[in-house]
């Protein structure tokens, strides 16, 4: 049995894994809310609407100490974090919280927290995965998760939309949400005073600062109960929705929109490559594929069509945004999770003890790795030697489909035109480096001289 490292902060329950099954222990302090939600059919309705992860009560003798109830959840194909999400995915996660709030309020319930980590991508779309987030509403009380909602959703979306999409990367540093004053500083003046952002960010940051003054620590305060009527709370939720809906990211779409026209190889090569990818995917029959450097998801789609769940990873937020927006409505598309990640600096373990949020390696292994038109970028743009690339791939999966581009390829010529230093990059270097960690099973040479290699990781290689 393993206790899930990211769920220890909630005193009302905790998630643990036993024999590859996910369970949640509910403690004494969580019972009242859990039973109330059960009795009012809240869980049932939200599960039916595909907004909440399903669960079933089980009696489990090995549950965590002090467990009063134990529920079982279905396993998610892959856990992902907001610093890896595309703009629209974070926005959808925010809207999911607001949808659920609007559903809960008339029933006398609300969300006790509004953490971006409580939303995950399943094959049906985005889901709230924290069953215990739902609790009985305190009468005439302000929303307890308002601050968390603004720092987890509104602040990052506002800075990404109004300042720069790359500010989403700040998530890695501020895993408890963006500091609101920092977000306000990043906004252009006109946006700071646009009605929604002014109310929920600029003023919000001001009131936070005001209540944080050091000189107030020793002052005796009369505790004044803040009252917010239910109708006003609904107004706040709707105002947040309106503000979030207005936030858009105008993607600089020149790169991927014209991807096909700027491609350095011919349609015939693409078709040949796609057929080979399909052949290897069918031969290996993977349940989980990681498409590293997935670009616009062309090959992710091929893998998804075979029934695999595909994590399409690319460093360009425009690519992941493109995939998320364009494939989420299709049946096969729902099996593709696009994640933004610089592969030369992949997601590390973060949070308490660096274990609360898992590194990308800890979320593996995948059944098959696709590394198509990728390794030359790692070698020439990030100076990563081929041997280290091979070692990293071997730590992610036993099966690898990797593309090697010859040094004469126009793409490589472009990457190296201003470089002075000599980097080891030839077919021989590639084979020597990769054979330390992989056994070459077969290969396919395309018309444009690029070569696709299907490799299997060596079980006990001496280089690890």
């Amino acid at each position, binding site marked *: 049995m393993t206790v899930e490292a990211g769920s220890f902060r909630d005193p009302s329950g905790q998630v643990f894994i036993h024999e590859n099954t996910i369970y949640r222990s509910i403690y004494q302090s969580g019972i009242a809310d859990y039973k109330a939600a059960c009795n009012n059919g809240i869980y049932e309705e939200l599960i039916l609407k595909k907004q909440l992860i399903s669960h079933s009560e089980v009696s489990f003798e090995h549950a965590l100490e002090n467990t009063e109830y134990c529920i079982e959840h279905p396993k998610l194909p892959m856990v992902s974090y907001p610093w890896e999400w595309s703009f629209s995915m974070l926005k959808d996660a925010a809207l999911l919280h607001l949808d659920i709030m609007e559903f809960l309020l008339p029933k006398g319930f609300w969300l006790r927290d509004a953490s971006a980590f409580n939303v995950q991508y399943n094959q049906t779309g985005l889901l709230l995965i924290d069953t215990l987030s739902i609790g009985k509403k305190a009468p005439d009380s302000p929303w307890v998760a308002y601050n968390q909602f603004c720092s987890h959703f509104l602040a990052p979306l506002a800075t990404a939309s109004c300042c720069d999409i790359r500010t989403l990367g700040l998530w890695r540093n501020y895993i408890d949400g963006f500091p609101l004053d920092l977000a306000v500083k990043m906004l252009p003046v006109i946006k700071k005073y646009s009605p929604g952002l002014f109310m929920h960010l600029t003023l919000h940051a001001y009131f936070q600062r005001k*209540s944080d003054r050091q000189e107030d620590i020793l002052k005796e305060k009369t505790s004044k109960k803040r009252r917010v009527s239910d109708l006003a709370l609904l107004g706040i939720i709707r105002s947040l929705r309106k503000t979030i809906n207005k936030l858009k990211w105008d993607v600089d779409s020149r790169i991927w929109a014209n991807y096909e026209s700027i491609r350095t190889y011919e349609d015939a090569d693409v078709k040949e490559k796609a057929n080979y990818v399909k052949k290897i995917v069918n031969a290996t029959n993977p349940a989980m594929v990681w498409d590293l450097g997935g670009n616009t998801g062309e090959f992710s789609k091929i893998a998804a069509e075979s029934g695999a769940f595909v994590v399409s990873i690319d460093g360009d937020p425009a690519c992941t945004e493109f995939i998320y927006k364009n494939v989420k409505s299709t049946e096969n598309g729902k099996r593709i999770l696009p994640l933004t990640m610089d592969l030369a600096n992949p997601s590390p373990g973060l949070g308490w003890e660096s274990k609360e949020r898992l590194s990308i390696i800890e979320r593996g292994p995948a059944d098959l790795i696709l590394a198509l038109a990728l390794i030359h970028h790692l070698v020439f743009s990030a100076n990563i030697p081929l041997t280290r690339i091979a070692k990293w791939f071997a730590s992610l999966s036993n099966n690898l489909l990797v593309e090697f581009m010859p040094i004469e390829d126009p793409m490589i010529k472009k990457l190296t035109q201003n470089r002075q230093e000599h980097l080891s990059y030839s077919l021989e270097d590639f084979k020597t480096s990769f054979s330390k960690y992989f056994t070459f099973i077969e290969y396919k040479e395309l018309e444009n001289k690029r070569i696709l290699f299907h490799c299997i990781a060596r079980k006990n290689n001496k280089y690890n």
Partner: protein
Amino acid sequence: MNKVFLFWMVGFWISICANNAYAYLDPGTGSMILQSILASFLFIGTGIGLFWNKIKNLFSGSKKTKLKKIGTGKSNDS
């Protein structure tokens, strides 16, 4: 209208006068204060919105009311 204008002007003034605070001792209190202030403004707007929907439903002839009493706090087990 004057009330709204005054609200923005006061908000504008305090937001430019505020100093930085790098230590968050109690971020929750500020959020609670803000919500109680916003509540008085948004209460009116939401109330008008709901009332307007009611009028529209009346004229559209739909017997099925889309409005629900918000946040009664009553549930089966309480």
